[in-house]
């Protein structure tokens, strides 16, 4: 319970202290570079194969009942609203989140964090806030790119394997780009980026006990991030549905 309280405090105080001087622009840029371009290739690969797999299963099933013209619609809806943000966030937690945790855990165990505190520098401001900002900027960007690549992957399977009409596929994708779908797909990565960074930083800063402590911190960070992503995905999905469907 106390750890949950500390995690909550870190999540609340980090964005607040980030707004006060001094600003650590260099650290923010470093974190954006690590989280964004550094994750680009894995995001493309994951997104491409998710789009292809989704299109494969959907086309196969719809073809058997004569509704294969809806492949684009189902792929677009699934990728933009659910699978794209969640899958890319899971990959982000595995690559960027675990990296944040292991770096901070190593600094904690080797007393580098203590040195920073002794120098009177705020660890939350200097180390945590730039990681949160880097994540909430880069994860949405990666998600937009990933969604696009997944849709292209779906197109290849639908058109070249199941011989569906390309223009029909794209027209159905266009139909899926509605305000509701756009907002649903855009809000989630912000929330995921924030929670992954907060959990990863907290686990890193609370690590103790040498190599075993580092391993435990990293494992906990990834596991809790995955659980948090899935839970938040459901909660946000429900809330956004209520907002849009009641409007």
């Amino acid at each position, binding site marked *: 319970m106390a750890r949950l309280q500390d995690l909550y405090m870190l999540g609340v105080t980090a964005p607040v202290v980030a707004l006060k001087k001094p600003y650590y622009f260099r650290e923010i840029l470093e974190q954006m570079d690590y989280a964004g371009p550094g994750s680009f290739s894995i995001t493309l690969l994951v997104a491409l194969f998710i789009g292809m797999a989704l299109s494969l299963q959907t086309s196969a099933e719809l073809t058997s009942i004569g509704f294969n013209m809806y492949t684009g619609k189902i792929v677009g809806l699934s990728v933009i609203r659910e699978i794209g943000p969640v899958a890319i966030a899971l990959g982000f937690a595995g690559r960027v989140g675990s990296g944040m945790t292991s770096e901070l855990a190593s600094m904690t165990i080797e007393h580098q964090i203590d040195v920073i505190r002794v*120098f009177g520098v705020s660890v939350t401001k200097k180390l945590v806030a730039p990681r949160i900002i880097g994540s909430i900027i880069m994860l949405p960007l990666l998600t937009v790119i990933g969604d696009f690549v997944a849709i292209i992957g779906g197109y290849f399977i639908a058109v070249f394997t199941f011989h569906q009409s390309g223009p029909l596929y794209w027209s159905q994708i266009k139909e899926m780009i509605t305000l509701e779908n756009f907002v649903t797909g855009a809000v989630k990565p912000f929330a995921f980026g924030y929670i992954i960074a907060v959990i990863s930083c907290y686990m890193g800063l609370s690590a103790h006990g040498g190599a075993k402590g580092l391993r435990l911190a990293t494992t906990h960070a990834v596991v809790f991030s995955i659980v948090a992503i899935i839970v938040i995905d459901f909660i946000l999905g429900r809330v956004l549905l209520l907002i849009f469907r009641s409007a």
Partner: protein
Amino acid sequence: MIEFKDVVVAYGKHVVLNRLNFKAGAHEKIAILGGSGRGKTTMLRLILGLVRPDDGKIFIDGEDITVLSEVHLRDIRQKFSIVFQEGALFDSLSVKENVAYCAREYGNYSEQAIESQVRSLLKRLDIEDTIYQMPEELSGGMQRRVAIARSLASCIPHIMLYDEPTTGLDPIAADHLCSIINELSSGPPSERPGLIIVTHRVRDAAIVAERFMYLTDRIAFDGGIDELKATKDPELRHFVNELFCG
């Protein structure tokens, strides 16, 4: 200047410090001896407010630091410098950037002024040539000296804290480091910066300190070098003899 009153620290069910009482003046040269896991490093971290005791009070210059927030603790920490075990250098930064860390954080100094300050500190510790090297390229002894330079760059300390500074060093490097530590706290007893060194090496302690404490879960011994050598306490006797022989 430093006072511990009935300080208790436990990690889970393991009580590390049990009703510890301890006083240290500003200009004293103190060695805290003790085996592994006895809470020596914890004592230093308590002095700096990096950990809070589970019970008891800690006073620095009469101010109870156990109730201070992280922001207020910054003023207290300015009175100390610390060199952690293994140096705790920032491994992604060069020697120059490590030593210049505080200057960059707080000062609005020119690059030339920073370089000049860093060079002067490194020269004082006889490692000026390492200025552009990375920590991983340095020997253990050099890393500790860079850590000392970095701690001196942050403030003019009233008391310098050393956490097992000679661990992992060969005897020659350890002696050299001890002589540097000694020199940094030299001067008239009423003016020199004090020092607290925690170590399990009595030989190193004997070079730098004038007052010796033996830590179990409380201070089991407190005295000068002659009293230490003449101690009848079987555990301390064994501990001291073994280390002198080693």
